[in-house]
């Protein structure tokens, strides 16, 4: 589960991790109203106004409606006129920007060409930046431990740094029984070239963050850039946080931060029924049991010349109702020109799938070809249910056979 930048910074602040002063705004008036408090508290007439969406690359991204406008804007209108006159000028500029940004669609390298609508803005104090650094905590799968990664190449994409200048990335594994030790935090801060106050502040920042990660069950925390200010403070200028969805049961406060408008509606609907569903661009709907088989079904469809419309794993313990819900979600996609049901029953029984599919077709109708391949537990019973239903179903003897049939019936490639 992902959260917005402003929510990440709220969490950081809760742990005593330094962040700039800022306020979230869901309307133009709220954005304008945020300015005075921020400027007075920070003593700096410069503010930054940032689009809040669940995607990176916002600074370089551009709005569909305003081709010149990026997702992160520094407002310097108040610099000339001192604090009091400055607030007025800053407020006016923030009003103009907020009007353009709110409700508009931001396209970044991570949103895809369709972009994402901006419904929230974050207004933040301007920071006098001395240096920009990179810091993240992620799972190192080979070590089965979390790892702190730091780099002096702040503001850059870490994958690019890893590719081009891997020596710039320093790492420390976190022992779960001990947490990040002080010497490790110090080593990271030295590796970042921090000295004096900045070294002290940086070590403390890193250690606090490493402990917070364990407590919060995050999947990934990325602070890019982590900045050193002219006064030697170390601060999170950005914050990208996602959580381990397996651990959300013990974090109701984090679940409350979920912004469903950032997620695909069909995927949210599917998760209500315990289905694992991901929308794709093709035209062959897939209903499969098991994540590996569901992925392999997509691969096979592609291989025989088609394009999958979705990933869908009904799971092992799905009921007839869940299968019906899955079928409805697939058929609600107007791009779907054919459906392939591919089941290898282990825990999942073929008759449950068959009953679910028959019930769904009775409720929502069937306007596209349907190919069903059943194998495994109670396969004979499942086939009998399909045969006796009178539905127009093509059966397949195996996975590739089924994929070929559905791609042909759906009229070839998407």
């Amino acid at each position, binding site marked *: 589960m992902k959260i917005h930048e402003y929510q990440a910074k709220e969490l950081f602040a809760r742990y005593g991790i330094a962040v700039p002063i800022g306020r979230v705004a869901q309307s133009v008036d709220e954005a304008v109203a945020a300015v005075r408090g921020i400027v007075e508290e920070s003593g700096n007439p410069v503010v930054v106004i940032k689009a809040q969406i669940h995607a990176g690359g916002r600074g370089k991204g551009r709005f569909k409606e305003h081709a010149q406008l990026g997702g992160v804007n520094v407002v310097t209108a108040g610099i000339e006129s001192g604090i009091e006159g400055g607030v007025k000028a800053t407020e006016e500029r923030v009003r103009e920007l907020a009007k353009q940004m709110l409700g508009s669609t931001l396209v970044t390298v991570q949103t895809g060409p369709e972009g994402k609508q901006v419904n929230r803005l974050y207004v933040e104090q301007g920071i006098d930046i001395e240096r920009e650094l990179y810091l993240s905590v992620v799972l190192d799968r080979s070590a089965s431990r979390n790892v702190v990664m730091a780099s002096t190449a702040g503001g850059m994409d870490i994958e690019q740094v890893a590719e081009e200048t891997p020596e710039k990335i320093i790492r420390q594994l976190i022992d779960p029984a001990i947490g990040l030790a002080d010497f490790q935090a110090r080593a990271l801060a030295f590796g970042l070239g921090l000295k004096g106050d900045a070294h002290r502040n940086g070590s403390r920042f890193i250690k606090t963050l490493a402990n917070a990660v364990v407590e919060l069950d995050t999947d990934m925390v990325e602070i890019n850039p982590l900045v050193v200010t002219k006064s030697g403070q170390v601060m999170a200028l950005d914050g990208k946080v996602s959580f381990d*969805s397996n651990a959300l049961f013990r974090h109701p406060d984090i679940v409350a931060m979920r912004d469903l408008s950032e997620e695909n509606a069909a995927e949210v609907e599917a998760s209500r029924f315990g289905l694992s569903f991901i929308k794709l661009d093709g035209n062959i709907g897939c209903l499969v049991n098991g994540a590996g*088989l569901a992925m392999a079904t997509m691969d096979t469809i592609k291989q025989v010349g088609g394009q999958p419309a979705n990933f869908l794993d009904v799971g092992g313990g799905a009921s007839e109702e869940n299968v019906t819900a899955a079928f409805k979600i697939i058929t609600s996609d107007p791009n779907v020109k054919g459906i392939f049901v591919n089941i290898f029953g282990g825990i999942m029984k073929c008759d449950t799938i068959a009953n679910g599919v028959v019930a769904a077709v009775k409720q929502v109708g069937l306007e596209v070809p349907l190919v069903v391949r059943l194998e495994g537990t109670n396969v004979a019973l499942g086939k009998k249910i399909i045969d006796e239903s009178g539905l127009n179903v093509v059966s397949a003897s195996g996975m590739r056979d089924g994929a070929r049939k559905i791609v042909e019936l759906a009229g070839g490639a998407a």
Partner: protein
Amino acid sequence: MSVLVGRDTRLLVQGLGDAGKFHTDKAIAYGTEVVGAVRPGKGGESVRFAGDADASGVPGRQNRYDVEVPSFNTVRDAVEATGANATVIYVPPPFAADAIMEAAHAGIELIVAITEGIPIMDMVRVKRYLQGKASRLIGPNCPGLTAPQECKIGIMPGYIHKPGKAGVVSRSGTLTYEGVKQLSDNGLGQTCAVGIGGDPVNGTNFIDVLELFNDDVATEAVLMIGEIGGAAEEEAAAWIKVNMRKPVAAFIAGTTAPPGKRMGHAGAIISGGKGTAEEKIAALEAAGVIVAQTPSDLGAAVLEAIDRWA
């Protein structure tokens, strides 16, 4: 004994909810020696399992079974009373890590965790706890393992297995079934099918199981089923290149998976451009592994790997 399990496996069950009961019944029907259940607070009670024996399971048994499985408060009590040497865990996710650690504390050799949805940090702690202990953990989020006609632990459908000469190791449950069935249909059969699970932090990885198959005289070839996410397949490929003395065939699921999306399994995600199917397939092919194009070709790929090896 096949690898990991066999006729002398004495199994405990931790977590006898609906799923645990259902699959324990199937395991007993298959002929697995289930010697006890760990049910904190219900020590001294017992649970009855009765039904028709699974004809595809351990041979030479009666057509029906009717057994009382004794319950124990702790794993240690159960081990002392029954001599159990393996345990299977169906405990719900919030409590599963604790169940694994309890089993390791009691010195059980083989711990098979079926549970899906254990928090990653819990598994990080479990892995730390297991360091220096004799227990081997398989899973979590796995279908278990089956040595055909000897022992079945977990949720794999028993009847698709046939005793034979191929070892199977897989990150995916249902793809394991595809592979096993094709190996049964083409006559190769299996020595053991091991599901290592789809989580990013697991107890046993590909290399661990490949080592076991490499040293097992009955295993003549190996089928390895991987998927996108992480680097376990690449690490296995590097190991195979140097160490493997038997033909290996493989399949990698997720060629069409979009980056940054979790494909059902917690560990199946391409992040930062890493963990793609293409990279894994290339690494395996460079190690001399025959990689199947689709899951319909798993059995054929093992035959081809054997042919090329000869």
